[in-house]
């Protein structure tokens, strides 16, 4: 290479770097026009795969819609959540394709990438664009879009767990979080419980994301620990929902720091690639305790990180503490008031037992984003056990919807009511007072529950 050539190249690469390095630049572009030759194929895919939730006209009103929370997207207004374009704008075609391929975790939208071919997905996306009535992907005058520049990961962390972000940046992120009042919706501890009364653009109830369950982030693209997805959501907002964009209020470097904070709240668990959820701990270990178990939930002996210790090494003082087990939950859709859209989809359990007391203790934690209004089902959790284990044969189990006449179950039910908690307040460092009330019942069937009596 001649030196002249070399200098030219050097200048060129400097220019490229300079272009990339200008923070927050948005590139004006046009929305990808509808590819008309794909529509016939797209219609076929749509009416076989998508119509059941998104409806015949794309109004988000398919047969399943009424039983889903969050509801399927209504395409008619052209509001799409996960974009790289500015708030309120139409998405790029690549955004929609990524959404279809990876699904929207935490909702009923599955990942179609392994199920449909790339051509089918592109065709379906183009058909969906024609379902948008209020706006027009072909309108090059009014629908100019700005594709945002989100910068790059400043810490160079690697997937899948993106560990090693410096604590100082996480702390700064927390300050920016408090300053911008993110807790008003996402709650003081990022549990998405800040405002239980929110509505989306169509008037349907909606909740803020629970940051402690990043595998349920809609735009996480099956890569839940990557802070990039958080930066994108903060920068573009989520069209159709109360989530605004912070592109102009917060500079892009600070958005990465908020992402570091949000990201740090999410426990590192091994994620099942098929379901995109943490693998449930089917076996709950109870830790032996010499002497009495401390019966207070905020006692340090109960402190245990929810992160998997095979992924992140624990400090010595925590290593002896009880494991916190992740239990996935589904709605009970068989008996009584059928729950198709459970608001809590997991809980965490740790346990200790004491020989001296002859007792087992369970600490059950869950995130409730709606306080129950129903006096019959208050904020409560119950554990079911086979009441007559010795009568069961082998691996036989009782019917765990409150047992039946032959195989009863014991129910330990604990109700909690928080006394001085208001979700929209800034986080309280002291914690909150709980009204806890425990009772023990025995179930001989869904409608046959009575108090447990000891002989």
């Amino acid at each position: 290479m001649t030196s002249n050539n070399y200098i030219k190249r050097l200048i060129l690469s400097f220019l490229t770097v300079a272009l990339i390095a200008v923070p927050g630049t948005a590139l004006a572009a046009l929305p990808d026009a509808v590819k008309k030759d794909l529509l016939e194929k797209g219609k076929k895919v749509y009416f076989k795969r998508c119509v059941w939730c998104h409806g015949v006209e794309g109004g988000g009103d398919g047969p399943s819609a009424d039983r889903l929370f969050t509801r399927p997207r209504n395409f008619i207004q052209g509001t799409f959540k996960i974009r790289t374009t500015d708030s309120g704008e139409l998405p790029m075609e690549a955004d929609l394709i990524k959404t279809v391929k990876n699904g929207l975790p935490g909702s009923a939208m599955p990942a179609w990438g392994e199920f449909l071919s790339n051509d089918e997905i592109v065709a379906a996306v183009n058909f969906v664009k024609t379902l948008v009535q209020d706006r027009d992907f072909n309108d090059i005058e009014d629908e100019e879009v700005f594709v945002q520049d989100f910068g790059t990961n400043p810490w160079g962390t690697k997937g899948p767990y993106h560990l090693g972000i410096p604590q100082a940046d996480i702390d700064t992120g927390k300050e920016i979080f408090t300053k911008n009042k993110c807790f008003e919706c996402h709650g003081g501890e990022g549990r998405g419980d800040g405002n239980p009364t929110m509505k989306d653009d169509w008037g349907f109830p909606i909740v803020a994301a629970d940051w402690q369950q990043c595998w349920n982030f809609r735009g996480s693209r099956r890569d839940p620990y990557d802070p990039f997805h958080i930066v994108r959501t903060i920068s573009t907002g989520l069209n159709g929902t109360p989530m605004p964009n912070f592109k102009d209020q917060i500079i892009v470097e600070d958005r990465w720091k908020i992402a570091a904070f949000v990201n740090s709240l999410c426990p590192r668990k091994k994620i099942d690639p098929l379901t995109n959820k943490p693998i449930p701990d089917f076996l709950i270990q109870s830790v032996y305790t010499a002497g009495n178990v401390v019966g207070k939930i905020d006692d340090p002996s109960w402190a245990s990180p929810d992160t998997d210790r095979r992924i992140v090494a624990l400090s010595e003082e925590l290593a002896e503490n009880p494991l916190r087990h992740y239990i996935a939950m589904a709605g009970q859709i068989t008996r009584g008031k059928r729950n198709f859209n459970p608001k809590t989809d997991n809980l965490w359990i740790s346990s200790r037992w004491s020989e001296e007391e002859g007792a087992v203790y369970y600490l059950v934690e869950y995130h409730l984003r709606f306080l129950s209004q129903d006096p019959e089902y208050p904020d409560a959790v119950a554990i079911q056990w086979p009441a007559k284990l010795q009568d069961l044969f082998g691996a036989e189990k009782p019917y765990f919807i409150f047992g039946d006449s032959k195989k009863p179950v014991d129910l330990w039910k604990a109700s909690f009511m928080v006394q001085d908690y208001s979700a929209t307040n800034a986080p309280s460092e002291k914690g909150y007072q709980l009204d806890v009330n425990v009772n023990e019942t025995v179930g001989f069937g869904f409608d046959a529950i009575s108090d447990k009596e000891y002989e």
Partner: protein
Amino acid sequence: MNKTLVSFLVFVVGLAVFHNVIFPVFTPKEIGWFLNRYVYYLLFIAYLLIAHFMLRLKAPISLMGLFVWALGFYFYKWVLYPPIPWTLFITYMVMWSIGTFLYVSQDPDTFREFRKPIVKAIVGEYKLAQIVLLTVLPLLVGWATYQSIIPNYQEPVELRTVHPAPPATTKVHGKTYPLESTNNPFRIDEQDNYKESFPFLDADKHEYMKYVTEGGTIFFQNCHFCHGDQLNGLGMFSHVFNPTPANFIDPGTIAMLQESFLFWRVAKGGPGLPNESTPWSSSMPPWEEHLKTDEIWKVILFEYWYTGWHPRTFGTEGSES
């Protein structure tokens, strides 16, 4: 350069390049007559032979034996598809190892040559190899023994029958259905005629599509939570349950069952399972409590239409496969 070393490099580097670069090319989504994994494997062997011939390499018999053995291991572990169970893999590899041994002991000369490095290592002519052999090997055995007896926590084993024997009859909504002879009343036409039809849009034109649409509607109101929007058993609730919900795309589920079997399973759910399936081990609700008989049949019709499978039939007429 040492020809043994060159031969070894030809094998190792060649395998690395073939496996990482050429193998993905030969395993596309749609397999062709040329672009498939077995042709790839033959190509790799051809490469080895040609490379050895062109470079006039003659590796010692012990190395050749190692190559042969490694080729077998590579084939069963990575090339053969679908993957074989572990026990079968062990069986094949034992046979392959015997074959390799036969190859190296084909005549006294090669066998002597093969034995030479081993004997030298044991008697101490190769000092380092002897030390490694006599210290690392016992340690490895000790470690394996320790690993197998160290106590660990495991969830209890639960054995269950996946497709339990159905009862002769099942009683749903006051009517008794003999499972052997009951057919889907809504299967009024050959399913394959409606492959290209649209639910909802064609529901007025074809009676068959009307039933499919109604069945799909019920499916997406009740069943998709577990069995998934793609009918692959990966619905929103699926990760919660053990055993996991049935995957209808899989050739081992509805594709090999009669429709009447599905009818019985849908109507009675987990609580209706016989003892061999360990009662209550399935969280499938007994859908007779929530769906009408006709609705259950329509859901079944939809499941076959969507997946493209045909129900198993035992009649002489119209039996597929």
